[in-house]
């Protein structure tokens, strides 16, 4: 963790401890969402710290102090002497801007907040910031299925829907919904798929006829854990070599990762490798980049892209350039 984050943690913890005299270590850890050891380490550091004082020698009266016996015997934190700090710090302008933008994004979702709440909170955050936050606005886009799916997650209801998978096959899926996630404008449901007996990720905009299966008990294993990343590489993934115009590389971050390994190719282009689950996704990705992404090998991947683009072109009554 960066030292700035550590400092921010100390500056946040002190006023909390002052306001919550005798708070158990476990409760403080739960409140801040950190391990108990992190609280203990911070409290120990706070108790050693203070101001130089008149003598400039950090005399006992210039330092914070805590009730050590109480900490050791009852695992409770009580500050018995405080210096310099008593209130929570203000937000930085950037912190306030981040919260305001995030607020606009989540407020655009169903059942979150009305415009009035957002305006009130924005005003409060602006006043609580040191410096004017940069103006940041987010126009969110919600999916029409979001309300229903979100309710099902909260209630633990089993969902049934028709799903069109990435291979253009439509089939009925029965799932135990676990989490609704979004990436900017795209919405995903992560769920236990009862037929596949595995965790799967579904795009909300590919679902049709979403309905609940009332009264169904969960079947998934109890110890199941959702990985943090939405897309998991699979052993069955294939590797494809592509050449990409340099300007386009950042736009492919979702597929290449934030720090893709690239080699120089012809002038203005780089060569890199892409892992894909199937050619259906690849041909779309490449066709949408109008020649700025080129599949080098394997041959069947090149053919798939060419056929896809040519078929698209043929719809306009021409197959030549």
């Amino acid at each position, binding site marked *: 963790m960066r030292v700035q984050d550590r400092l921010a943690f100390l500056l946040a913890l002190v006023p909390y401890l002052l306001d919550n005299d005798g708070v158990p270590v476990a409760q403080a850890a739960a409140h801040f969402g950190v391990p108990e050891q992190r609280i203990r380490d911070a409290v120990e550091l706070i108790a050693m710290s203070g101001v130089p004082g008149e003598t400039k020698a950090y005399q006992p009266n210039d330092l914070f102090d805590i009730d050590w016996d109480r900490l050791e015997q009852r695992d409770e934190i009580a500050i018995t002497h405080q210096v310099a*700090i008593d209130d*929570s710090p203000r937000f930085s302008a950037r912190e306030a801007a981040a919260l305001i*933008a995030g607020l606009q994004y989540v407020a655009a979702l169903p059942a979150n907040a009305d415009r009035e709440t957002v305006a009130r909170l924005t005003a409060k955050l602006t006043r609580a910031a040191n410096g004017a936050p940069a103006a940041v606005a987010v126009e969110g886009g919600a999916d029409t299925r979001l309300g229903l799916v979100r309710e099902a997650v909260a209630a633990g209801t089993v969902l049934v829907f028709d799903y069109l998978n990435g291979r253009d096959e439509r089939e009925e899926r029965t799932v135990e919904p676990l989490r609704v*996630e979004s990436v*900017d404008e795209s919405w995903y449901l992560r769920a236990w798929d009862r037929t596949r007996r595995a965790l799967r990720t579904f795009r909300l905009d590919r679902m049709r006829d979403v309905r609940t299966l009332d009264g169904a008990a969960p079947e998934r294993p109890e110890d199941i854990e959702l990985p943090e990343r939405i897309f998991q590489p699979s052993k069955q993934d294939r590797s494809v070599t592509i050449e990409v115009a340099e300007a386009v590389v950042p736009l492919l971050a979702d597929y290449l990762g934030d720090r893709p390994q690239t080699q120089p190719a012809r002038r203005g282009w780089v060569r890199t490798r892409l892992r894909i689950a199937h050619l259906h996704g690849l041909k779309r990705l490449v066709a949408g980049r109008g020649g700025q992404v080129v599949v080098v090998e394997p041959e069947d991947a090149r053919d798939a892209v060419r056929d896809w683009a040519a078929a698209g*072109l043929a719809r306009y009554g021409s197959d030549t350039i």
Partner: protein
Amino acid sequence: MAAAVSNEERLFSLVLALLATETGLTKADILSSVQGYRQRYRANGGNASLERQFERDKEDIRDLGVPLESIELPADQGAVQYTRYRIPKGEYDLPADVTFTPQEIALLDLAALAWREGSLSGESRRALLKLRSLGIESEEPLIGFAPRLRARDAAFDPLQQAIERRRVVAFGYLKPGEDRVRRRRVAPLALVQFGGRWHVHGTDLGARDRRTFLLSRITGPVEETAETFEAPPGEPAEEARAGLRAVFAANRALLELTPDTDAAARLGSRGEPAGEGVVAVHFTDLALLADEVAAFGPEVLVREPPELVDAVRARLAAAAAAHGGGTGG
């Protein structure tokens, strides 16, 4: 010799010392007396590396939104050793009348968690700490709901900083259909995400008018100039958003979608029905919609506008040709 003082302890001690002083401390006071510096301080000079440490620490502390002031004493204008440093408590403390309800905390938690990656994730994490500091328990946490905002464009951070500092920026911008990057000088006013993409809105000093730029079309670094500007009246973020909404409403494409395909599912979800198998989709940027439509290959036939037909055909033709298709392929 005393055990080494951690960076964390030194920074914390510096904040405490500067909060406790009314009149301010000189650099010499700080280096010679504050925990973490005093252990390395040499009374007879040669403290250059310690001074550099102090400069970095000041920046780190200010970055957190702590109002660390330097006061130049009038009589000693320009003499660095007489600059005094302090953190005025009134500007450090969260104003007492700013309070949040448990419902508001729950909403702000969600807002902060939306920035889980990339730009602003560090800021959100620290903002969340400060919210926790108030000791308000959030209303029922929203289990199983994880909206996520991203700002992956490299231009985002420098633009946000320039907006805060009211500095004119210069950057290269590649408009679709043009083959040459043009240099723009812009007084940036607001960042707006619309349709999942980040835009910067500001005064284009070349065109002498307000403009909105797509961050993904900025090429090369965003350079902050020394030139500053006055904030114009009004709410630039709202004006930019209203502008994008108006463009979005005015631009309409008619797309024929092949039933039971990815295109029908995804573009169909976004548009309004406009006849048998046809949907009307609104858009802010023709080139971006053309990228998206071309990706669906034969699943979409563009009916209108003709410019979109041309743009999609050009993309498909280029993709086919690059993979050995087209004339003579």
